[in-house]
């Protein structure tokens, strides 16, 4: 009962708090007695939510970690159910009273377990059950016949539930929907799907209200709107209940005696100090940004582990059983430290953590706040946190994040506009549930916040797409999945499409994964490998980079890549001390705009440098002497020759994704200026382009004005043209095609059907691009690429900001600030070289042979 314990222990000190806004007599005697038995008192926001429940108001609770959010969300339902009492014997069973939706299956299961305590101890007549992808068929069947009072589930399961023909009966008694970790759900396509599901639920069960639970976000009002049906031209939102943050966290940046590296992400230099901090604490979480970082840090900590402390590893690629074990050990307090990726970001409780170490820059102020909140789930004691920058730029970033955290600044991403691919999936689901009339359905869809501005034309084309593909060449009408009947309603044409819908529901598109299986030849070199234990999974692209014999870190071991067999990667244990492939595939999270501005401001203001480590100060001072410092609102570009190439490095500090786009566009322009660019590399801080032409000379002699090179008009035609042919678009298209139901998901057991049988979405993309560029799926793809993937808007803002303020430094040699990216260049995968150039490089030797034949 760790959760309950932690949730309530904070209340001990709350008794002397300011007077609650809602009177304490809202709490029925049985509940008050239960609280009292434990020596607790309800917190003001918990009572306030109870009052909202009595007033039948939808509410959004925004509270930092550790405020007892979950209990606050459930309290009104528990009180109502207690008052309702048992179903009299002989009468029909009732439908679901409270539906709880969380982004994580594990969280739903965890909450179910933790609701047991109050239910059992107060002997409440309340049944609580979960329904996830893992729930066996017989249990689902029983749930339909005899629904529990409280059902805990996920957005995907909600989509399936509302597509059942008997959904109306199932939800006829629905009183409350609780949406947990709402901040995490709404920024993805899962949020779009959920919003549409809730709109449907409001049509089926108009009497229910919604309760949202969220961590602190930058725009709480928008989130409160998201929670309730939208009406065109009006501002409608749920009541907002906000809990102020608890004690200020105590955060410090690790000050190492060691030399801070120029580049890289392992932070190996600082790990002895991190280890010492772990040894001095009760239990620590060491957060990192990527799986490979987790592996490196974990391996290194064990090398240092002279005291034999129990330190574990937790990341999404590890086998689920292994992860559960780590979670259990943590909950039971048997561990001293866990090295974890974002898999530990969300609300599951982990016991008595008193220190959070963040290795690498946190990339966003809000993310840092949430991760730090993991330490000490007691609002009233300060969390302890240490930031460990892995390189010199990260020192600046950590400093800026730390300032933001003290200011309580938030930089969570804005809410999304709903995707048309998700809408397409929902349209089919709507038809599976029963016939629908377009007008009413359109109004229902527009009541969902992400779709509140959806135009009728886009809606109709989406319905057309679901019906028959929606192509200009109308040749598929005879194969239609849904069809308008004489009464004007749309109906499913065949029940098999309902089955197809159920198998393909959801918006999570996993990167193709390969199982990592330990193989052995029983000590006989050369003997065929036998498959052993499965260690976990890796993304296909990772396996693509490896050649047989390469060694890499996984699950804390050095493994040798042997071969791929079907969807499995066979590996053996390697004796190597150091893995050959360190592989850092770039963090998932780009630097937030807020932190970027902070870093720029710090660079531009030498008076503030005294807050930085001496080594970093020296680095910046040297930069100031030999080149210039990037300013708050200008753009520094440097050009210099090195070996037989010419380099240009620009420092916009706008995050890797924006820089990747910029690099691609600059390369195109430099090509036109005959600079023969060969490639580019983007980091969170800068972008480097290199080529055979002397760009510095071109700029200085007036051959090309750098202002023209960085003119915002590059976001026009060039961007459009480039976007259409990039692999990023193809990747977004694949996701849209899967979600919209253009192609089917591959299910376990189907891998053997082979690649030549399934149609590659890349081929479909090429065809659509040339024949129907305005197809609804192309629109969905472009919106995705522009919004999430490419950070184009951010790039546009930057180009506008620096317009007319470009500072060019033509240098003889590499500048101090350019050292990090030039070091990365030696080991990172290089973007931006055309596939044909790469191909001819491999083929060249043969071409010479061929020429001499």
């Amino acid at each position, binding site marked *: 009962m760790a959760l309950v314990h932690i949730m309530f222990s904070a209340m001990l000190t709350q008794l002397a708090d300011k007077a609650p806004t809602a009177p304490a007599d809202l709490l029925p005697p049985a509940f008050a007695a239960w609280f009292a038995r434990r020596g607790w008192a309800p917190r003001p926001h918990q009572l306030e939510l109870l009052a909202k429940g009595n007033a039948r108001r939808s509410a959004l609770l925004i509270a930092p970690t550790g405020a007892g959010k979950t209990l606050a969300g459930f309290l009104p339902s528990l009180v109502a159910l207690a008052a309702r009492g048992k179903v009299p014997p002989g009468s029909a069973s009732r439908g679901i009273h409270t539906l709880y939706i969380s982004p994580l299956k594990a969280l739903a299961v965890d909450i179910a377990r933790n609701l047991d305590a109050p239910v059992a101890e107060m002997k409440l007549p309340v049944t609580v059950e979960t329904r996830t992808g893992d729930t066996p068929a017989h249990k689902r069947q029983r749930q339909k016949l005899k629904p529990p009072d409280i059902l805990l589930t996920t957005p995907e399961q909600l989509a399936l539930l509302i597509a059942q023909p008997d959904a109306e009966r199932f939800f006829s008694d629905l009183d409350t929907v609780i949406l947990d970790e709402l901040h995490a759900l709404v920024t993805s396509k899962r949020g779009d799907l959920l919003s549409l599901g809730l709109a449907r639920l409001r049509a089926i069960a108009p009497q229910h209200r919604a309760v949202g639970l969220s961590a602190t976000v930058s725009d709480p009002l928008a989130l409160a709107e998201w929670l309730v049906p939208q009406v065109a031209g009006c501002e409608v939102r749920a009541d907002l209940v906000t809990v102020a943050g608890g004690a200020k966290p105590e955060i410090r940046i690790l000050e190492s005696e060691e030399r801070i590296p120029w580049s890289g992400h392992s932070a190996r230099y600082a790990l002895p100090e991190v280890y010492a901090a772990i040894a001095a604490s009760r239990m620590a979480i060491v957060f990192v940004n990527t799986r490979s970082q987790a592996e490196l840090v974990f391996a290194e900590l064990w090398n240092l582990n002279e005291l034999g402390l129990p330190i574990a590893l937790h990341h999404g690629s590890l086998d689920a059983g292994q992860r559960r074990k780590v979670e259990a050990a943590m909950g039971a307090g048997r561990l001293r430290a866990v090295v974890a990726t974002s898999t530990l970001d969300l609300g599951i409780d982990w016991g008595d953590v008193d220190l959070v170490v963040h290795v690498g820059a946190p990339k966003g102020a809000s993310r840092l706040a949430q991760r730090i909140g993991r330490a000490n789930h007691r609002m009233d004691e300060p969390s302890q946190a240490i930031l460990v920058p892995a390189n010199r730029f990260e020192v600046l970033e950590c400093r800026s994040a730390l300032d933001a955290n003290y200011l309580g600044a938030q930089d969570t991403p804005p809410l999304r506009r709903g995707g048309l691919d998700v809408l397409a999936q929902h349209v089919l689901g709507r038809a599976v549930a029963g016939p629908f009339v377009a007008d009413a359905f359109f109004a229902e869809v527009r009541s969902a916040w992400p779709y509140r501005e959806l135009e009728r034309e886009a809606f109709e084309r989406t319905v057309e*797409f679901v019906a*028959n*593909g*929606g*192509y200009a*060449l109308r*040749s*598929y009408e005879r*194969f239609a*999945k849904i069809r308008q009947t004489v009464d004007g309603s749309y109906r499913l044409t*065949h029940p*098999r*499409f309902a089955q*197809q819908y159920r198998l393909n529901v959801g918006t999570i598109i996993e990167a193709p994964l390969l199982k990592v299986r330990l193989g052995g030849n029983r000590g006989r070199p050369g003997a065929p490998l036998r498959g052993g234990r499965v260690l976990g999974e890796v993304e296909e*692209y990772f396996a*693509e*980079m490896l*050649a047989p014999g390469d060694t890499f870190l996984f699950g804390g071991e050095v493994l040798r890549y042997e*071969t*791929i067999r079907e969807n499995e990667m066979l590996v053996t244990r390697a004796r190597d001390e150091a893995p050959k492939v360190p592989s850092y595939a770039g963090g998932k999270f780009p630097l937030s705009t807020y932190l970027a501005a902070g870093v720029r401001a710090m660079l531009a203001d030498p008076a503030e440098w005294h807050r930085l480590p001496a080594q970093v100060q020296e680095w910046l001072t040297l930069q100031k002497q030999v080149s210039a410092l990037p300013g708050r609102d200008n753009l520094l570009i440097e050009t210099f020759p090195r070996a037989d190439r010419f380099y240009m490095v620009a420092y916009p500090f706008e995050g890797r994704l924006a820089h990747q786009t910029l690099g691609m566009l600059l390369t195109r322009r430099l090509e036109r200026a005959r600079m023969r660019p060969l490639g580019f590399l983007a980091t969170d801080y800068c972008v480097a382009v290199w080529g055979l032409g002397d760009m510095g000379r071109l700029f200085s002699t007036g051959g090309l004005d750098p202002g023209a090179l960085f003119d915002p008009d590059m976001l026009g035609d060039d961007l459009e043209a480039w976007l259409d042919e990039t*692999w990023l678009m193809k990747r977004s298209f694949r996701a849209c095609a899967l979600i919209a*139901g*253009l*192609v*089917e998901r591959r299910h376990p057991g189907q891998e053997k059907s*082979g*690649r*030549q*049988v*399934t*149609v*590659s979405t*890349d*081929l*479909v993309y*090429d*065809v*659509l691009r*040339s*024949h*129907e560029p305005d*197809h609804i799926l192309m629109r969905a793809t472009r919106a995705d690429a522009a919004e999430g993937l490419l950070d184009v808007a951010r790039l546009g803002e930057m180009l506008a900001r620096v317009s007319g303020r470009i500072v060019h430094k033509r240098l003889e040699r590499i500048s101090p600030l350019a050292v990090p990216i030039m070091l990365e260049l030696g080991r*990172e*995968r*290089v*973007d931006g*070289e055309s*596939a*044909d150039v*790469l*191909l*001819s*490089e*491999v*083929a060249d030797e*043969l*071409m010479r042979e*061929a020429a001499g*034949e």
Partner: protein
Amino acid sequence: MNEGGRSVQPDTDAEPAAVSARCLGLRLAGVRVELDPAGGLVWAEEKLLVVADLHFEKGSAAAVRGLFLPPYDTGITLGLIEGLVARHKPERVIALGDSFHDRRAEERLAPADAVRIQRLTGACDWTWIAGNHDPEPPRELGGRSLSELAIGPLVFRHAPARGGCAGEVAGHLHPAAKVVVRGRSVRRRAFASDGRQLVMPALGAFTGGLNVLDPAFRGLFPGQAFHAWMLGEDRVHPVRGADLRGD
């Protein structure tokens, strides 16, 4: 990763000079043939063009199952063939089997596409080799049908004979090849050959590729002479077997 990046626009540049720059010569069982990056094999001496695995109406075959792939694949594949014909002006064309995705593909053809096929088969000596997808010949589209065809030292059939066969030109396997250069992988359709026999890439707009290192190719090209002739935008890139990667 980079599956089939070739242009899907009809290929109409028919300049003779461009032809020789695009294509790459290869000696196959003693015969000199040209490989066109659009995916066709040309035996100039015989004025012969060979294409493989067209899979006409693969899109509409999926549509029957409720997966509405764009209905343009047949038109695009035809555009590629028309481009090859315009460039090389063959007197004979061999379609190496699986020209139609399924037995009912002919019924689903758009009328305009049927006319384009008839125009092609009517303009030269056209042979449909039977494939596993289309064991029966089309009824109203012209051309003649054979299970295989031998010309000089070369034999043209749909599926490669087990264990390999000198002078054989086959399709069926949809060869694709992958190379990794500086951490980036490029995957393209390819001709697979060791100079003794050859497997053609699939031409159909929606046909994917099977890596030439897949077990399905095992035994076909045992020696060191094996190369994948990868299809680039406007060139064919020969890559030594030892430099290729599996998927």
